[in-house]
């Protein structure tokens, strides 16, 4: 099968455009690809349980070839590459300041800081706490849950926080408990981080011994924290799936509303927040809301920890103020020859080099921390396939759009690689992707086609987008691709 690639005219994609549902016309750019396709619909066999693809095509580097040899990698202590504000926060101050105020005032401080959830969804933390505090508690119980199920590919900043600054996290949970009127906190730690369990258990015990946990943390405020491990399910990072798992069931996301702040763990109002969020909350109570919001943008206040990996010289955890341009992160990490960055993990989007001026923030390119750099020699179809395999494996299986949609798109990616994806089928896949984005029951399904769509949009040549005969000339945009 011969693939003949004709250089693509650049598209000049507007910087502000954020595409959720890709229109067909924008795909079928002025790209002429001669392919040999198989006629008619084709039912693929169940895929073999294989590893990631490393097959090189046309002599270009496969997904598997390393740009930076492991031995050449610059090591860093704690895996942290920049000064870390959180490492400078003295433990205990935050909680002390919180307990000296009323719970409502604590919520106000968090609110004023403007901090938004650091796990990826970016819900304003203060608003979440207020909703939980104000929701009726049928039997008087409320819960604080720390989402330590860091499973988004490319994310490891929580691993570092839990390993090296666990007290900040536990303190933040305690502050939350005080603020919303909860007496019980649970850390849901992903099973893949089992090596962190003993350390956390030790810290919980030490804090209990120091009166920072248990009965009478403050008169009238008891707070206990326990640890529960996950068992290998990415979807349990979704907060309602996490709650299902805590309740001893399959980790299948719930229909929302109601949200956990109204009806969460065992039906009680529950705050589910990310590890990093709790750590920052401790810092905010210690140093003040204004201190936090002095950094970042109006709609995305404060610093953010990023997990940089992939084709960079210096992978690791980086702290940047929100609003940082992607190019700056690349410069710091040694990946300025990148072709694209997958920001936000598998559930994120693929940002091409032409858009590296965009910023990491909730209003622009959002992420829970994952920042995977794609070097110039990578086979992007393999990237797409790797991501889609991930989603097909990790889908909980409840709803048809995700359960069936993920494997259908995965099959489509393979057809594209093998040159047997007809334009009609690709059009159908793009439409299916749009349907998945709006009908899937949870965020996993909703975001699962995003990287695929962004690759199609920005790299149609690499993705072997087939030409559609009869496409009206005026629908071909003036530019396209990279």
């Amino acid at each position, binding site marked *: 099968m011969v693939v003949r690639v004709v250089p693509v005219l650049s598209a000049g994609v507007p910087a502000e455009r954020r595409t959720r549902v890709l229109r067909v016309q924008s795909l079928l750019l002025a790209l002429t690809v001669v392919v040999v396709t198989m006629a008619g619909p084709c039912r693929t066999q169940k895929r073999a349980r294989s*590893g*990631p693809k490393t097959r090189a095509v046309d002599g270009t580097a496969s997904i598997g070839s*390393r740009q930076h040899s492991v031995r050449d990698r610059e090591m860093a202590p704690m895996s942290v590459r920049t000064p870390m504000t959180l490492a400078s926060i003295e433990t205990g101050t935050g909680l002390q300041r919180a307990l000296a105020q009323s719970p409502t005032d604590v919520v106000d401080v968090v609110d004023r800081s403007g901090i938004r959830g650091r796990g990826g969804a970016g819900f304003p933390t203060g608003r979440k706490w207020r909703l939980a505090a104000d929701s009726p508690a049928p039997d008087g119980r409320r819960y604080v849950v720390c989402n330590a199920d860091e499973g988004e*590919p490319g994310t490891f900043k929580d691993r570092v926080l839990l390993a090296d600054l666990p007290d900040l996290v536990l303190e933040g949970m305690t502050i939350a408990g005080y603020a919303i009127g909860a007496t019980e906190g649970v850390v849901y730690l992903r099973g893949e981080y089992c090596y962190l369990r003993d350390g956390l258990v030790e810290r919980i015990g030490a804090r209990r011994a120091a009166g920072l946990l248990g009965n009478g943390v403050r008169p009238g405020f008891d707070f206990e924290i326990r640890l529960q*491990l996950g*068992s290998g399910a990415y979807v349990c990072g979704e907060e309602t799936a996490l709650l299902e798992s805590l309740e001893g069931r399959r980790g299948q996301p719930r229909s929302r509303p109601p949200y956990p702040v109204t009806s969460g763990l065992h039906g009680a109002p529950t705050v589910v927040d990310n590890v990093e969020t709790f750590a920052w909350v401790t810092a905010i109570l210690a140093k003040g809301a204004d201190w936090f919001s002095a950094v970042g943008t109006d709609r995305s206040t404060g610093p953010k920890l990023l997990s940089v990996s992939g084709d960079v010289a210096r992978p690791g955890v980086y702290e940047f103020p929100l609003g940082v341009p992607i190019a700056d992160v690349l410069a710091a990490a040694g990946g300025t020859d990148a072709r694209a960055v997958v920001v936000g993990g598998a559930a994120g989007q693929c940002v091409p080099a032409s858009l590296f001026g965009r910023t990491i923030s909730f209003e622009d390119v959002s992420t829970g921390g994952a920042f995977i750099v794609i070097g110039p020699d990578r086979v992007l179809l393999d990237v797409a396939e*790797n991501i889609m395999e*991930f989603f097909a494996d990790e889908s909980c299986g409840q709803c048809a759009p995700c359960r069936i949609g993920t494997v259908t798109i995965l099959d489509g990616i393979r057809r594209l690689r093998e040159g047997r994806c007809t334009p009609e089928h690709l059009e159908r896949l793009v439409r299916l992707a749009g349907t998945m984005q709006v009908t899937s029951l949870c965020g996993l399904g909703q975001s699962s086609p995003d990287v695929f769509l962004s690759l199609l949009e920005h790299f149609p040549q690499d993705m072997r987008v087939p030409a559609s005969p009869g496409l009206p000339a005026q629908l071909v945009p003036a530019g396209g691709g990279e």
Partner: protein
Amino acid sequence: MLNLPPEADPAVAAEVDSLVAEHGRDRGALLPVLQEVQRRHGEISDLAVQVVADRFGVPPVDVLGVVTFYRFLAGRRGRHVVRLCRTLSCAMAGADDIGARLERELGVPMGGTTDDGAVTVEWVHCIGQCDRAPAMLVDDDAVGDLDGDRAAETVAAVRARDRTLRDEVAVRVGPTDDQRSP
């Protein structure tokens, strides 16, 4: 009424009962109990599933649904588990080559267990070691910055430790039934 047959191993029910006593019998304790059974035995046997179901007052297929949902609970594994990450950063760093090397070293395909029941090697998705890609979990530890040699050395060390331990046990207690051999 769960009417266990006379040939059912009483140790299974006894162990489940002690775990329930430790973790509680409300449904929230189900996962910790299942995790512990899996950790001790490398699998959650059918008998264990039925006893757990009985003690928690839920249908057996319900417990099976939980077991088969979580990657780490389902299936049967050897005494040591090597989990090699295959997701993007690790794939780009050459996880596939590591996988091929491990298969050669252990003599089993990915997903398989060595004949002596010592090591299971399997693909997993992102384990949060992307800055040290390619990386793998070896039992409860993470090993990153792998190349083929380092990966091979790691599993060789695991096997050696396993052999030593088992030799020690054999010397101490004599031949025993190995509940984890295939």
